[in-house]
């Protein structure tokens, strides 16, 4: 009989972690200086702030008997959404960062070394020579 409550409590802990990650990511998104630094905050926001709470919501839905039969639909769809997010979100930010660097839209400002830029310059030099 206690299995429902245990599942719901685990789910609530996961949602609470998600909310914390979400707040941290949004503050970082606002305060960080440029695009490449903001990518870190976006990672926290998508994986910690969307994937983890969706798993938690699936657990809460499994334990929530007052929602009726359709709670299994809710749990399954949450897990599918979580899988979609963990597959697609990193690729989205990767593609965006690659395009930004290639089109030179944002300057890589606080940098020690930028191997990608050196490679591109070397390639262009080879082509010109």
């Amino acid at each position, binding site marked *: 009989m206690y299995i429902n409550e245990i599942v719901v409590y685990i789910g609530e802990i996961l949602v609470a972690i998600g909310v914390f990650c979400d707040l941290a990511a949004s503050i970082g998104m606002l305060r960080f200086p440029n695009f490449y630094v903001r990518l870190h905050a976006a990672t926290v926001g998508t994986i910690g702030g969307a994937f983890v709470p969706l798993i938690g919501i699936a657990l809460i839905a499994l334990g929530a008997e007052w929602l009726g039969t359709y709670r299994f*639909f809710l749990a399954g769809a949450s897990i*599918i959404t979580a*899988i*979609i997010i963990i*597959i*697609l979100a990193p*690729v989205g930010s*990767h*593609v965006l960062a*690659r395009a930004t660097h290639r089109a030179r839209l944002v300057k890589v400002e606080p940098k020690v070394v930028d191997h990608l830029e050196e490679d591109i310059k070397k390639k262009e030099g080879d082509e010109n020579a």
Partner: protein
Amino acid sequence: MKKTDLFVIASIIVFILSLAYITALGGLGPLPPINVRRIAINYLNLTYNMFTPYLTVFALESVTSIVWDFRGLDTLYETAVFYAAIIASIALYRGVYIDFKKNIEKMGLSPIAKTVTRISLILIPTVAASVALHGHLTPGGGFQAGSIATVVIVLSIIIFSRYFLPIHGLSKNKALLFRSIGLLGIAVTSIALLLIAIVLGVNAYIFQNQAKIDAPLSFPSLVDNYILGGSLLFFNLFEFIAVAFGFTIVFLLLSISEEKVKKVTIDG
């Protein structure tokens, strides 16, 4: 964003809020009543009510229950609008052929994006099919599922390149064929009752799926205790096919390079 922009936005928001406040106070005419009206109560009672099997529509969703008997007409008009748009784009691009290129390794975006897209090529159509086949139980239906499935088409055109779909066997003409199959399915579903009625020698309505007083035939709503939803299942399935392949045609044509189109349209 400049300071004048901020000022204009703030004044627009204040205007909208004050308009909303005046409307809520009843300054622009009488307010509609808050409690549920009688026709809404009727719809809610007759949506899925097992105790009155002669009046209920056996649909769990109230939007479906409202368009229950007219879902065929709903589908017809949706497809008609879309049909005109697709025919226009095909006519605009007449004479332009998508060329065939085998070597597409170096085109498109990075290898990471390509690998992940190969996974989602299976994942996304599954989600779309579940939305289409559950259209009579949960929110969703043919148009929604078709537009979800279009994600795959657009992503594969943009991430791999415009040659990816023709290489894997989905050329423009084949998409047109599948779309025609979808349209044919919608047509057959809408006149199926009439055909059966002609054979049996009774009256029937086209585009409708409930038995009337003078027309005894209807699509089955329950099969072996599973809610089937009459003709809704068939309409959703065929419209899913029609919409998905219609969008495929549009995006395949849009992705052709501009020089090629100019050559055909200007030189004739």
